[in-house]
């Protein structure tokens, strides 16, 4: 016995469901191909069993072994991570202070300070780079031969200068959604100013601090131009090292290290998404007390 099959007419896409129209799909595919073909090629050829990177000659991990035994490259990577960590810490502190002050206080010349803080974001990298070169050559010559990591000081200073305004912008944007009545309530209930900041303001600011830290870390790790002008022969960072390797010749070793770094980036992104959740779902304003202070009350 066979039941009559009711065929639903094939659902026609709505007029605004652009994603279901084939030209749109093709376009997205094209953009994705453009963005990822180079990266995929890079990863694939990092496993290539050949000294040259042109033809596929079988799977091998030997470039990874070689890269992990390349002391100069590893030292550069260590320098980069150290610089990024230090400049992130300083940038978050300075950026939080600046963002907080600009949100909280009225003072003469505020628009001026506001504009000045925005300048490092728009000034071309090369201009800041030569500025740092000249500054550390004339005004504040960084002593050579300092012990690690003090020899990285000049680069760290340069990185903080272009990173912390980004943190300030993020913090300020976040504080715009702060409900000042909560602060007044805390003060009414007897909390001092410092306590109010710690228990009410900081918990509200914390997503911005995390986002700002992530931004500062990425900016620092990514920077080539400004570091290129501040680094000396004994303070080579990862991008500067890769630059000199690429200028010299294209070697599969670079592919291997790049793949490792990309894997790290993807991992960090996944963790960040996990921790902060779907960024679009989070745009609804939070009502009630922030989580952190609610937990404090319980303990």
């Amino acid at each position, binding site marked *: 016995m066979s039941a009559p099959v009711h065929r639903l007419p094939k659902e026609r896409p709505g007029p605004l469901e652009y994603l279901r129209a084939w030209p749109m799909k093709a*376009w997205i595919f094209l953009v994705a191909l453009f963005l990822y073909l180079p990266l995929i090629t890079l990863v694939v050829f990092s496993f290539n069993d050949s000294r040259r990177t042109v033809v596929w000659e079988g799977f091998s991990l030997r470039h990874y072994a070689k890269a992990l035994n390349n002391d100069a490259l590893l030292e550069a990577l260590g320098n980069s991570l150290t610089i990024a960590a230090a400049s992130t810490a300083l940038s978050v502190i300075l*950026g939080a202070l*600046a963002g907080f*002050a600009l949100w909280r206080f009225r003072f003469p010349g505020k628009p001026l300070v506001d504009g000045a803080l925005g300048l490092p974001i728009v*000034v*071309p990298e090369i201009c800041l780079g030569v500025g740092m070169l000249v500054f550390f050559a004339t005004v504040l010559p960084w002593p050579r031969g300092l012990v690690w990591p003090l020899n990285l000081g000049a680069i760290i200073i340069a990185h903080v200068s272009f990173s*912390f305004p980004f943190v300030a912008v993020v913090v300020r944007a976040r504080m715009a959604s702060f409900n000042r009545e909560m602060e007044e309530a805390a003060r009414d209930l007897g909390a001092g100013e410092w306590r109010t900041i710690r228990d009410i303001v900081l918990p509200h600011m914390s997503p911005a601090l995390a986002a700002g830290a992530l931004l500062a870390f990425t900016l620092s790790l990514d920077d080539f*131009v400004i570091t290129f002008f501040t680094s000396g022969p004994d303070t080579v960072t990862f991008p500067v090292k890769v630059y000199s390797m690429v200028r010299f010749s294209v070697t599969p070793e670079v592919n291997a290290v790049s793949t490792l770094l990309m894997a790290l980036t993807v991992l960090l992104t996944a963790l960040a998404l996990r921790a902060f959740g779907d960024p*679009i779902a989070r745009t609804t304003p939070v009502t009630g007390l922030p989580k952190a202070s609610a937990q404090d009350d319980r303990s």
Partner: protein
Amino acid sequence: MTLGAPLFWLVVFFFAPLAIVWAYSFGENDGLVRISLTGTFQNYVRALEPLYLEIFAKSALIAGLTTLLCLVLGFPFAVAVTFAPRRLKVWLLLLVMLPFWTNLLIRTYALIAVLREEGVVNGGLEFLWSAGSALSQSLGFGPLDEFKPLSLLYNNTAVVIGLVYIHLPFMVLPLYAALDRLDRSLLEASLDLGAGHARTWLFIIVPLAAPGILSGSLLTFIPALGSYLTPDLLGGPDSQMIANIIERQFKRANNWPFGAALSFILMYATFIAIALQALASGRRSKETP
């Protein structure tokens, strides 16, 4: 004082270095290492020589072309993201952002491997070419001429491709931010009233996305104009942009005053671009009640 520390940092480690460069731009080399600040305008006059004017014009042209290509490539993508279901939206945005978080040097290096004469693009084209050749042979037309690889690297094309590759997210994200706020009923009305998709895009979506187009263009144009690494690694001997000339003055040519003058011309050009954008968006917001 909470503002004190960041302001101190900004003045000492940002404005002071730039101020020194600015002062040097009015100086001249005095011996090998000394620079005397004589208040001369000769560095700026030299920057107006045809050789350097040409490089400025070329940089602006390359940056403009990059911006245009990013817009053409990114606009349909941003529209697709806007009208995608929510879960897919996150993935599509991630698709654009992920290369952006990858190190700039790694991305540029990856492009070299793809664009080389024996790279992936030419490999793919050669494969298609030989397939076409076999096809024409089997149809009795005889084989095609031998495949000549396109030279995609170490020229101006490579610089533009590289700049588009790097700056696409700067365009897509502001476009998406503008499109996401747009009132969908306007589009439905336009389609209902008989305008086709082409007309709806041209007369409804694009004008409504204009603020995003403006800010995306600015965010793409400014870093593209001052880019150093891409023309340096992907460009040929005639693909020098302003930043490369500045670098040469500070490192190899050792003419700091002239390099300083060029830096400040680049900086002023950046500020002019920002001012123009502010003017344009100001006028727009006045027009729309």
